[in-house]
């Protein structure tokens, strides 16, 4: 099949100052807490002030990332808006719930309820653009962004003129943090984010952000890379199974493991959950440079969107920022494999190639 899928633009708001396209994680922010919140741009640059009034923080973050991405891609009207998220608009959801419980189901705030829906961001983007095209939201933990990518790729295959806006977003929330810490999601001890991978303990740190890509079949002058495929894996039992799945994924695209130059790894700093991922990236891809990002953004369900953002930039700029703690410095970077695990439950990969 001759059709290729080009990343025509990108945009991210994260706990690093990523909205500025002039810098690429060059001066990373250091954190000494287990919850990493986004560094936000001046929202008025991206969102009209009247609309801004009723938007929650995460909707503002998501809208800004989407706008940055569209401007970067020179895209005025997407043919589809696809978002992925784990907990969605967590802050509004929890606020409405707390009000409901505290006030015995009286005097609640309608705005919290209307903003609590998972598709609030995809709807808000459509509304701001008056975009009546395809609009959906996937809410499957660490398959959320990946589901959007696969959906968009199929629609581009159906109609190659289509240009799709695909994003992933999640927001930190102290209640979720406390609650899921009960089942071992987050570290018991406070960790410095740059010490995440040497902590030697269970759990990770919570993060957030919103990242978007514009995907289309045309190799625009601004294209960063091609996105050659996405695969999600559910019910992975051992490293052999994961390794076989990665090999099949690469073989289906006609390449071997030795051709992967860089692995953007979804290592989370949890000694238990990272085990299979690390084993496979070391055994199957020993020659590839490994680069990490979850210490920069924290862990969240839709963090693969940030993974795509870094993979695209690595390929266009032909360099891996030192902040990603790369294990090497490849001379030329042609192929990047994004390989992720989330809480030891979901595994996923995406393949990117330089243009």
């Amino acid at each position, binding site marked *: 099949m001759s059709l290729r899928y080009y990343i025509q633009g990108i945009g991210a708001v994260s706990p690093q100052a990523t909205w500025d396209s002039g810098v690429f994680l060059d001066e990373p922010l250091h954190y000494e807490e287990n919850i990493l919140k986004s560094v936000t741009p001046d929202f008025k640059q991206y969102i009209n002030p009247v609309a801004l009034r009723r938007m929650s923080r995460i909707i503002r973050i998501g809208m800004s990332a989407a706008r940055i991405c569209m401007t970067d891609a020179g895209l005025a009207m997407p043919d589809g808006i696809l978002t992925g998220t784990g907990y969605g608009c967590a802050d509004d959801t929890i606020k409405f719930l707390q009000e409901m419980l505290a006030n015995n189901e009286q005097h609640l705030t309608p705005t919290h309820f209307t903003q609590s829906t998972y*598709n609030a961001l995809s709807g808000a983007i459509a509304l701001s653009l008056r975009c009546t095209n395809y609009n959906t939201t996937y809410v499957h933990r660490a398959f959320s962004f990946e589901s959007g990518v696969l959906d968009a790729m199929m629609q581009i295959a159906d109609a190659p003129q289509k240009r799709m806006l695909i994003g992933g977003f999640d927001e930190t929330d102290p209640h979720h943090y406390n609650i899921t810490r009960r089942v071992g999601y987050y570290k018991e001890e406070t960790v410095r984010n740059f010490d995440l991978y040497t902590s030697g303990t269970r759990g990770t740190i919570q993060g957030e952000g919103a990242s978007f890509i514009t995907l289309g079949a045309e190799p625009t002058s601004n294209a960063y890379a091609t996105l050659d495929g996405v695969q999600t894996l559910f019910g992975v039992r051992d490293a052999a199974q994961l390794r076989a799945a990665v090999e099949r994924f690469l073989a289906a695209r006609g390449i071997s493991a030795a051709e992967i130059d860089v692995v953007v790894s979804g290592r989370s700093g949890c000694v238990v959950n990272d085990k299979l991922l690390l084993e496979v990236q070391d055994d199957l891809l020993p020659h590839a440079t490994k680069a990490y990002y979850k210490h920069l953004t924290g862990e969240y369900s839709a963090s693969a969107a940030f993974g795509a953002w870094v993979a695209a930039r690595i390929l266009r700029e032909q360099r891996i920022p030192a902040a990603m703690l790369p294990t090497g410095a490849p001379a030329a970077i042609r192929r990047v494999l994004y390989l992720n695990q989330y809480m030891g439950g979901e595994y996923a990969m995406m393949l990117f190639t330089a243009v």
Partner: protein
Amino acid sequence: MPRVYVTGMGAISAIGHNVAEAFQSLCDEWSGIGTMQYLHSQHASMPVGEVSLTDAELGAMTGLPDTTGLTRTTLLSIIAAKEAIRDAGITISEANGIRTGFISATTTGGMREFERYFHELQDPKAVGDFNQYADTLDSADHTEKVAAILDIHDYISTVSTACSSSSNAIILGAQLIKHGHLDRVICGGADALCKFTINGFKILMILDSEPCRPFDQTRKGINLGEAAAYLVLESEALARDGRVIWGELTGYSNTNDAFHQTASSPNGDGALLSMQQAIMMAGLSSSDINYINAHGTATENNDLAEGMAIQRLFGTQPPLFSSTKAYTGHTLAAAGSLEAVFSLLAIAHDRFYTNLNFKNKMEELEIEPIAESISKMVDIDFDPIENVLSNSFGFGGTNTSLLFSKVKDA
């Protein structure tokens, strides 16, 4: 591209614990809307469409030895998905080489349990059985638990686009088959009633304290319901082996109103576009549609927008249309797949359903839904039902239409 057929259906809702019971209720014009029995809320006076079983009874119905940590949404989901698989007459096994997916939809996932145990869960010192619900608010929780129980591993995903969620799950399933990623997909949605949504719709003042009246001039809002419903979609090659085929998914469309955060455009622009595109995809014209299972929530806004869209597309003599929300309540994420089941039953049995509680034509419209009087006119020779359009619209401006067609030479 392969055609996509429906070979199995499962549903549990206020009007029946399985598809056969639901069909009987629809034919008998029996509404499942009643007083709140199983959910404990300050707004117990609000009529709802509850599944008339306790969590323990649902647990027993699943046939599983242990249902620890399964939310009500998950229990509903397992029951309906298992029925769909039985109905399709299939066995799921990695060994048979049939690539199988499970795509579910939900708007609130495990909120019912989360809101019950929220205080305990967020208190790091509290200990107890509630710990099993620590991450069940996550929408993927029910999908993964059901997929594991059904032994489905090839592809899973979860959709949440408010009240159109499970229609979009069906669209993704169809796309994955058409593009050759999967051979078979079980897709649909599930939502258990919870205080969160009761209070949300109540504060928006679109919850009716009386039984809801879709497309009626006096309508005052929705009754909430709970349900799970799934379809088994298969590629043509797989489906054509002598098993019953309920119908073909010939068209689908997802559009956005881009009008308002929670309201539909009153002239029905988005709804019109989604119906038009679904009909176009199927290669049909509007005159080929025999029945429309409308979204018809009974809110002032939805029914006006949808009614206007039907009138603009079909004129003042539209196909028979009705909302089944007055039977089941608005089952949110499950509504699209539940009504897909009803649409396929309409095709299989050449039946359409009375729009319960309709008495007064809306002032703004020239058209009206299937009133009781029409459905009783047994001597009228109606066209056989070959093509049914099923609409689902929701917050965030989401509009989805599915088009199911009769499969003739099956």
